[in-house]
């Protein structure tokens, strides 16, 4: 089970930093794929093929985790906490403190929507209010992502060993807010019948 220790950054020979040149990452991914893809090792022994398959799976997982700045942060948090798997990995969603009051209103409106759904749908006015609130939350969601990608990521990359714990906590709080917003936005979408039936919006990260 050698190689279990190789984390996603190490697979690409990168330090544990968030500032990654994605074009360079892609170039390296292609280069490593060319070298280690199972397609090019069909003649190898079964044991060797199993190793190649495992290494290739690890490379693909590493590329997926690192190519996107937000997935990269989520992975970093997991890694720093010493979790190899997703076990217990779900961040507990947390409402953004400055929006608490608004959230109560929205939750109430959603409750109403749910019971109205059984009787024949929301009226136009309530729908419009919900849609406006959703758009505001979407904006807030994008702000949160921008903060994660920008200021917080830079803070991590420039943090000395003593500041790391703080930077990590900041990530976790921001991710929790983002997860909360995502859930509420999806709930509103569903209440408004917006997205295709039951198709979970792409929660890539």
């Amino acid at each position: 089970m050698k190689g279990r220790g190789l984390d996603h950054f190490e697979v690409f020979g990168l330090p544990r930093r968030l500032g990654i040149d994605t074009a360079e990452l892609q170039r390296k991914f292609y280069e490593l794929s060319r070298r280690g893809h199972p397609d090019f090792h069909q003649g190898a022994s079964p044991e060797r093929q199993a190793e190649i398959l495992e290494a290739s799976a690890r490379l693909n997982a590493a590329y997926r985790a690192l190519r996107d700045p937000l997935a990269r942060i989520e992975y970093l948090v997991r890694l720093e906490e010493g979790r190899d798997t997703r076990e217990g990995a779900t961040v507990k969603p947390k409402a953004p403190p400055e929006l608490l009051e608004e959230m109560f209103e929205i939750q109430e409106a959603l409750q109403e929507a749910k019971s109205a759904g059984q009787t024949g749908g929301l009226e136009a006015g309530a729908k419009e209010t919900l849609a406006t609130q959703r758009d505001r939350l979407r904006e807030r969601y994008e702000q949160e992502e921008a903060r994660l990608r920008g200021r917080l990521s830079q803070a991590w990359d420039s943090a000395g060993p003593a500041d790391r714990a703080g930077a990590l906590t900041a990530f976790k709080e921001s991710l929790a807010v983002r997860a909360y917003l995502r859930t509420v936005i999806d709930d509103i979408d569903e209440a408004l019948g917006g997205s295709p039936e039951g198709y979970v919006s792409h929660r890539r990260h």
Partner: protein
Amino acid sequence: MSRIVGIDLGTTNSLVAYVDDKTGLPRVIPDRDGQVLLPSIVSFTREGVLVGAAAKRQLVRRPQSTVYSVKRLMGRGYDDVKDELGYLPFTVLPAEGIVKIQIEGRDVTPPEVSAIVLKSLKERAEAHFGEPIEKAVVTVPAYFNDGQRQATKDAGRIAGLDVVRIVNEPTAASLAYGLQRIREGLIAVYDLGGGTFDISILRVKDGIFEVLATNGNTHLGGDDFDRAIVLALLEDIRAKHRVDLGRDLEAMQELRLAAEAAKVRLSAEERTALTIPFDDFTYHREITRAELEALIGRLVESTIAPCRMALADAGLAPADIDEVVLVGGSTRVPLVRRRVQELFGKMPHSQLNPDEVVALGAAVQAQILAGGITDMLLLDVTPLSLGIETLGGIVSVLIPRNTTIPTSAREMFTTSVDGQHVVDMHVVQGERELAKDCRSLARFELSGIDPMPAGMPKIEVVFLIDANGILNVTATELRSQKAAAIEVKPTYGLSEADVERMVEDSFTYAEADVEARLLIETRNEADTVITHVERALAQGRRLIGDDEHASIVAALTALKDARGSTDRDRIREATTAMNRASEHLAELMMDAALKGALASRRADEIMEK
């Protein structure tokens, strides 16, 4: 390395191709008669099994024992397909985790039917190369789930083929285009076949074909277009002739084939005529391209949402796409081309024959695997998210959709009760939040756990999706580093024992030998002519004189007599004589039908005024 061929196992047609060593280009292999497309149709007769064009000619005559579009049933459970069974003339029954097709009291499974098609292609390739062929790359729709892929692999095994790789059809097509036309850029492959629809978005760079996202519908294709036409024709016939042919299996096949042919003609022409002789009347009508488009508009439109979802997953807008490639026979329909062009805002590519391009790409992938091509590499993705059911029936996603394969995910499991020695898990595939709304893949049972207090055992389970898009699961108890025993209960599909038995049994479905096949065909042709002539005599007696009637009846008697013998030449001669004797009557009847159609149109016009 031994030779590997590429096979496109299609809903409507199948093909086999290889890469020519001299030119380095992929080529399709024709059969003895020069035909490249093998209709994916299998007819079970007492004398043996017919495949391809020979089976296609049985559709009308033996609707209940001639199986077509079986790809739509591959890897499916009864509940998945029960809504469309009403349209199929053969009997499909539920079985544990699969469906079975009942033919004259005998059951066959979809992989066994597909195996007969594969075997015929295998033999075609063997005849071409003069050597045994044992390995193949076989294509599947990109949106096929684990069970459908597994069923395709099983079909290969039953046919005596080692399926060294399952490749997604749109990506295979991109390889064929990549070799010959497209070197670099963002590509959208729009693949609308006989029964399935896929959209794949790829980035091509330096010989690497990286799939960014894929989406689709494994139950949407040209078959559905035909069905929409048939339903309209049925209604028209009800209105004009006051009969309902919906329950008449043979008539339905006649209608389906006529609808399909009209659809094909309308790709080149603005209007076309259908003439179908039935027992009591001859149905005649014209259909315009605009009418066809009204019938299939909704179906074509339903391909647009998956395109948008794939683009969103790839993080791209339609305008970002550099090249659009059309694959699959249904992309010949002008409406389809128009909609794709509108969506992406550019003229799509269709230089390579859309019927052949997937097989050509499969041959390229086969050549890569055989080591003959080293500067091209396909990096495909898994189309559907893979997850496990957690408390409350919620799905926890382990491998998100559009992850490059091969890929793996690890998950820790433990016990919840002291001394528990078995842990269950339920693996599902799909994009819904609740396990019950996703596709159940399998239930796994981890057993042999040493008795320990609850929560103590640490079982690491590795979910690996291989380059075929098929799931493999292994488990290790971390304290002892012992591999945990896993029992897999696939929700759909055949068990290992089933496949073994089918490999053994496959000779039961041996193709009829040449002599028997020719006899069946000759008899069938005679049967068709007999039916037509009897029908014509019943409907058109008043159009001919007594002498002509007598000579037709004499020829008919002679033909029926000949048909009972095993002398092919005699049957053929009698058939020819019959055709000659009834030629004049057929002409008279066609004229009458046309006049009738004109008359009814005139009546309509008068009614409108």
